[in-house]
């Protein structure tokens, strides 16, 4: 697996079964890795030899291909649904009443029970009640365990019904509630959490990316005695468990009174994280040296070469690393927990969310925490959807190049 391996050409493995080989047009699809990133030689690999010469069999063939395409896509879609269904429950629950969550046979979507307003001006919930005349929609006036009083909305007459009303199906209708958001935002200082997290993520990302670019340039383009040894050390620090560094770092930050401030979450980023350096260095090595050399002949200093020649060419990798670090900071929990505990005014989003969940875990039958979780994940998920191509390319650069 070297830099020339490509994820471009997604149909590289054309040979998935006896049905392939028909002249189905190759899917047009944005390759994760642009051809400029890593040589995209996927196109040479696709196999599109027609296997059958006969027209008749070709038609049958393409029909079969069509149906297995559909089958495969449906299978994958159902897997994706199973995979993401907890997310659907979370979104639905965030817009639900607590009562609906514990009701018997509630609909999956946020809903309310239809009501009937009686002559006295009172609104009563409507239920589907099995009576002698089949199922009738009746309004529950007085609920008791064995017999209940209902009102027939059509006549306005009271009906005594024997049975437990809790077993009845209510007449639900779709109605999202926004009260949960209000309740969450009353307790959770969302603007504050957002601001703290934003500062930590943005400042951290600026520091991490700028320092990693500089160091990666050093590793990629300069002859330094012992450089390979240093690079090996860099790789090793990627694998180092954080536990062995944490305690002395914490003690040192306590000594200089940095605990209880954002500084321990910000400052170390400016000293080049090994993982980011590794990723950028791998990328820089794929860039042609001719441009550097031309700039050098024109008298450009190394800093100038980095800024004007390397950085513009390396934008895809730089964006990927920025996104990595941004998500990492935004979602990090342990470091904020250790350094910011007891300072709620500095809490980041994940810390605020955890504190909220610890206190209000079951409030309103759990709808509030689901709502808070939704609020906490909106920013990273939206940014991911916007930057997903650059991001996933980064995952691949880091993983495949080993």
């Amino acid at each position, binding site marked *: 697996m*070297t830099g020339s*391996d*490509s*994820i471009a*050409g*997604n149909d*590289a*493995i054309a*040979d*998935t079964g006896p049905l*392939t080989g028909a002249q189905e047009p190759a*899917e047009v699809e944005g390759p994760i890795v642009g051809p400029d990133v890593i040589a995209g030689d996927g196109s040479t690999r696709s*196999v599109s030899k027609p296997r059958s010469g006969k027209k008749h069999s070709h038609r049958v063939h393409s029909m079969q291909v069509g149906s297995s*395409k559909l089958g*495969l896509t449906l*299978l*994958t879609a159902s897997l*994706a649904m199973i*995979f993401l269904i907890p*997310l659907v429950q*979370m979104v639905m629950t965030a817009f639900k009443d607590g009562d609906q969550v*514990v009701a018997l046979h509630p609909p999956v979507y946020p809903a309310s029970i239809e009501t009937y307003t009686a002559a006295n001006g009172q609104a009563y919930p409507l239920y589907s009640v099995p009576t002698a005349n089949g199922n009738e929609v009746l309004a529950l006036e007085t609920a008791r365990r064995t017999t209940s009083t209902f009102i027939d909305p059509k006549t306005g007459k009271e009906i005594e019904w024997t049975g437990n009303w809790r077993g009845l199906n209510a007449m639900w209708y779709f109605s999202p509630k926004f009260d949960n958001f209000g309740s969450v935002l009353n307790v959770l200082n969302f603007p504050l959490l957002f601001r703290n997290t934003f500062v930590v993520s943005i400042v951290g990302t600026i520091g991490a990316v700028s320092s990693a670019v*500089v*160091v990666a340039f*050093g590793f990629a383009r*300069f002859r*330094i005695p012992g450089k390979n040894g240093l690079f090996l050390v*860099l*790789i090793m*620090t990627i*694998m180092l468990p954080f*536990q*062995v560094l944490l*305690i002395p*770092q*914490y*003690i*040192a930050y306590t000594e200089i009174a940095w605990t209880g401030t954002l500084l321990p979450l910000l400052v170390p980023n400016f*000293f*080049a994280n090994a993982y980011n350096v590794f990723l950028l260095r*791998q990328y820089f*090595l794929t860039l042609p*040296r001719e441009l550097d*050399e031309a700039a*050098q002949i024109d008298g450009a200093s190394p800093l100038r070469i980095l800024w004007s020649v390397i950085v513009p060419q390396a934008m895809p990798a730089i964006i990927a690393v920025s996104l990595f670090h941004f998500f990492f900071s*935004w979602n990090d*929990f*342990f470091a904020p927990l250790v350094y910011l*505990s007891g300072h709620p005014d500095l809490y980041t989003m994940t810390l605020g*969310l*955890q504190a909220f*969940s610890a206190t209000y875990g079951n409030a309103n039958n759990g709808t509030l*925490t689901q709502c808070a*979780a939704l609020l906490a*994940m909106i920013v990273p998920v939206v940014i991911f959807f916007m930057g997903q191509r650059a991001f*996933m390319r980064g995952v*691949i650069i880091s*993983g495949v*190049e*080993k």
Partner: protein
Amino acid sequence: MVIVDDKQSVNAPPKKGMSLQRRETWWGLAFLSPWLFGLVVFTALPILASLVLSFTNFNLSHPGDTRFVGLDNYARMWSELLNNGNAGASLGVTVRFAIMSVPLMICLALGLALLLNQKLLLGKPVFRTLFFMPVMVPLVASTIVWQGYLNGSTGWLAQILSTFGLPSPDWFNDPAWALPGLVFLGTWGVGNMMLIFLAGLQGIPTELYEAVKIDGGGAWARFRNVTLPMLSPVLFYNILISIIGVSQYFTQAYVLDPGGTGNPGGSTFFFNLNLYKEGWSYNQMGYASALAWLMMAIVVTAALVLFRTSARWVFYAGGDR
């Protein structure tokens, strides 16, 4: 293979004797300096310090009383490991989790990558994004989401199972099911590995599959004789990364039980919950350092075993290993 070796450099071979080479070295070191500084201050010194601390009784609330206690911390750890004290129990939970989670995640990631690599699949970019997306959800939030989903009465999983007449455990409130619940929660992190497998799959030359076909091999033969060996370096990397991941497991367990006792019944009392409790609740940072070194030793050993055995099962197509 990891490190693309670069012998060339920006500057042409030195023409004006050593001065140019020297200049280049100084520039290079200047560029490396942020990292070199960080290496010393944020990595090298802390490692040494934590090793030293592990032989002391350092307590953050009264650091003045610090003295060397020899192997006391390690002796305490050893006895806790032997008689299933906190260290032993928490290590046990972590190992059990690893045994359940790592193989499942590898198989799931590989299976999804194979599926998303099928030529016949429509809308690949959409599926890739969907399967990757939960990786982006903050762990605190995804734990809360799964607490809702796996709730024994109101959770959708229990309700889906009950429509088929199946019983559902009350996952995170049942000592027997809390850890499997966390394993399921972990599947939301499958996206990274899946993408890496996918990239590996797409790097396999089609000629190899052609060759198997000519030899009359079926789908299984193609998988067994081409895909698996060609993918073994990626598999190796993914196993290593998952082991490191398990060794750092903390957030999900902490969200489940902020008290840090690994409720229900200690079934989610992960190694790092214990470390956090010793170090931050009890301020026993000397002992916590010893715990950190135990985990470091375990991870390094696992990595070494993996590297040693890799010669037998990891196939590097380049043949340079």
